[in-house]
């Protein structure tokens, strides 16, 4: 079994730790600038499809992924750019994917709702609300059976907790005590339907009571608080203590998707939440703690801006996904190419205690 890199201990981490603070802030800026660029490209008609932006929610993805070690995995959602970036994806193939380029993560076949970076341990965004939860749980079962020591985090929204998929998967995670953290990013709405209306309990976290594992609610706009709660949940998962339902309270500044006219919420509510900007809040804490200077923060902003600009510029120049190549052999896109081993899509973790392939065994007969 591959030794997993140690996650930073919670005690070191936070605004006071310059290295940690810089990383966390950079990640949040990368997410924001990336999505602002997407919003802009979309508005200018240069991007296809629809987009679900997580602007305003950056602290949740960032704090959770900061608690993960190399080899740990995530499963993401339709609102997944932030998760993907926080888990270490490259901005260039992400942007290239959204711009329908052959060099995109999915070669233009998936787009925003299906971006995955399997090598980095992102099992993929998912266009289906709740669709990733059973998959994450199955991956956690595989980690347990294979003894990899890896933890799987599953992101989903508040609305997803009303799907049967959430219930079935949470129950499986509980009975098998799997190394999984169920992260519910509660932004108060499933599209237009508020959590007050969509459930008759006050918090998503208390739904954990139905499965017998801890449910924890945390300020999802406070990257340190998210990190601390996630670190605890990840440690529980890794040590065999089973799942946690972690509810991060946050808010999306933008509409649900491109078709949203914001009829179901008030301008005041939006303004109030925008005032609780996770990035500005964290910058204030950093400056308070004195770990980084104003110039340091400016450098982070510049870096994020430049990285995103670069990703846009370079992917604009990249060749489009090519229908001719695609049409030459569509079945090759649908079915897996011949493989020496079935193990693909798995993180770069060696199987543990698992034998050789059937074929090899047969040969030895």
């Amino acid at each position: 079994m591959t030794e997993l890199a140690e996650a930073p201990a919670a005690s070191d981490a936070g605004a006071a730790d310059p290295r940690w603070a810089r990383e966390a802030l950079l990640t949040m800026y990368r997410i924001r600038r990336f999505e602002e660029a997407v919003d802009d490209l979309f508005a200018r008609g240069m991007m296809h499809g629809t987009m679900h932006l997580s602007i305003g929610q950056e602290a949740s993805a960032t704090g959770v992924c900061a608690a993960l070690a190399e080899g740990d995995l995530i499963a993401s959602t339709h609102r997944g750019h932030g998760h993907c970036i926080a888990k270490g994806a490259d901005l260039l193939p992400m942007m290239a994917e959204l711009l329908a380029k052959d060099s995109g993560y999915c070669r233009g076949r998936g787009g925003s709702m299906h971006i995955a970076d399997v090598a980095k341990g992102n099992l993929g965004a998912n266009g289906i609300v709740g669709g990733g939860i059973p998959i994450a749980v199955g991956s956690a079962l595989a980690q347990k059976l294979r003894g990899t020591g890896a933890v799987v985090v599953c992101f989903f929204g508040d609305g997803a907790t009303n799907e049967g998929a959430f219930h079935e998967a949470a129950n499986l995670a509980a009975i098998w005590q799997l190394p999984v953290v169920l992260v519910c990013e509660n932004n108060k709405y499933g599209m237009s339907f508020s959590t007050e209306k969509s459930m008759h309990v006050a918090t998503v976290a208390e739904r954990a009571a139905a499965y017998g594992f801890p449910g924890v609610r945390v300020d999802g706009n406070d990257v340190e608080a998210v990190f601390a709660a996630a670190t605890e949940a990840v440690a529980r998962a890794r040590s065999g203590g089973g799942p946690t339902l972690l509810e991060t309270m946050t808010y999306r500044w933008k509409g649900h998707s491109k078709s949203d006219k914001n009829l179901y919420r008030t301008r005041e509510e939006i303004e109030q939440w925008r005032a609780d900007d996770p990035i500005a809040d964290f910058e204030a804490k950093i400056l308070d703690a004195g770990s980084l200077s104003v110039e340091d923060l400016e450098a982070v902003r510049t870096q994020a801006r430049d990285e995103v600009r670069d990703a846009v510029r370079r992917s604009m120049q990249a060749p489009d996904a090519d229908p001719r190549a695609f049409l030459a052999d569509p079945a090759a896109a649908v079915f897996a190419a011949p493989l020496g081993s079935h193990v693909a899509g798995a993180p770069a973790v060696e199987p543990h205690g698992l034998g050789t392939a059937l074929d090899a065994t047969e040969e030895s007969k």
Partner: protein
Amino acid sequence: MTATVEHSNGTAAPAAFGYVAGSAPADATAGERVITYSEAVREAMGQAMAADDRVVLLGEDVGVYGGAFGVSGDLHGRFGGERVRDTPISELGIVGAGVGMALSGLLPIVEIQFSDFTCQAMDQIVNQAAKIHFMLGGAAHVPLVLRAPGGSGTGAAGQHSQSLEAWFAHTPGLKVVMPSNAADAKGLLLSAIDDPDPVVVLEHKLLYKTSGPVPVEPVRVPIGKAAVPRRGTDLTMVATGVMVSRCLEAAARLEADGVSASVVDVRTLTPFDAETVLGAIDETGRALLVQEAPRHVGFMSEVAARIAESESLYRLLAPVKRLCGLDTPIPYAPQLERSVVPQVDDVVAAARALAVVG
């Protein structure tokens, strides 16, 4: 209803889409013995599990109970509860878990007790398992095997008797097989476990207790190859699942009357072996397409369409004839249940009528 040997001599020839089993196949004629279809399924799982620790089975009551139809039998005793895993009644959850396992280095087999309950899991089957490889631009694949028994004949009524193969065959990204006899039940399942893509294996309740010769060795039957267990001159029956043995029985009876029928066992619905199927139809010029599922937009519609749009059309001596289940749910009463799906007598009658048309 006896299984036949003629079309069970599968060899591990390259399956469609270039996937090649890693080793030379054992000689299929060596070391056969007669076992039941359900024993054959169990044997395939047992051999795969013994050979490769990544192979795991999960499903409702597959453990101590031995499976709703007794298919998993002693596997729990042999491999333990971690690898032969009982699950709660959560089809969506367990198929999804299978997808996650398949993405994470294991080779899961998920058993659904009755194929009707795939309805609960359609999102994970269709929107996830079938599409992940494609949507991710090839960055991952899903070596998941979904086993589920379909079909009527046990008095289990409308929600436990459906033949849903057409749905899966119509879903790009799934491979779909329907073994009609014990040898194929083993050989196709071995290929399915080998396959890097999601494979839906539709077994049949009535076949579980039927017997036939099955190789002792783990001999694969390739996915993507139809079989022709009987060759005749007057008409060609094309069948799936339990209808294959009904057609063989009908063909034997027709022979006494001087009607000589070919029987084609489709075996793999996706990828579909048009060459073998249309070739066998061309030889006789008369096609009787037999399935248990309702006729309307069923799998045999596709076979008929392949004929209608190919050169085979010009070789037809009579219009194509479909003999299918009625477009009704399956009723409970045995006399009604029998009346809604083709029986041997129906095949005989349809074949006789077809043989004289044109």
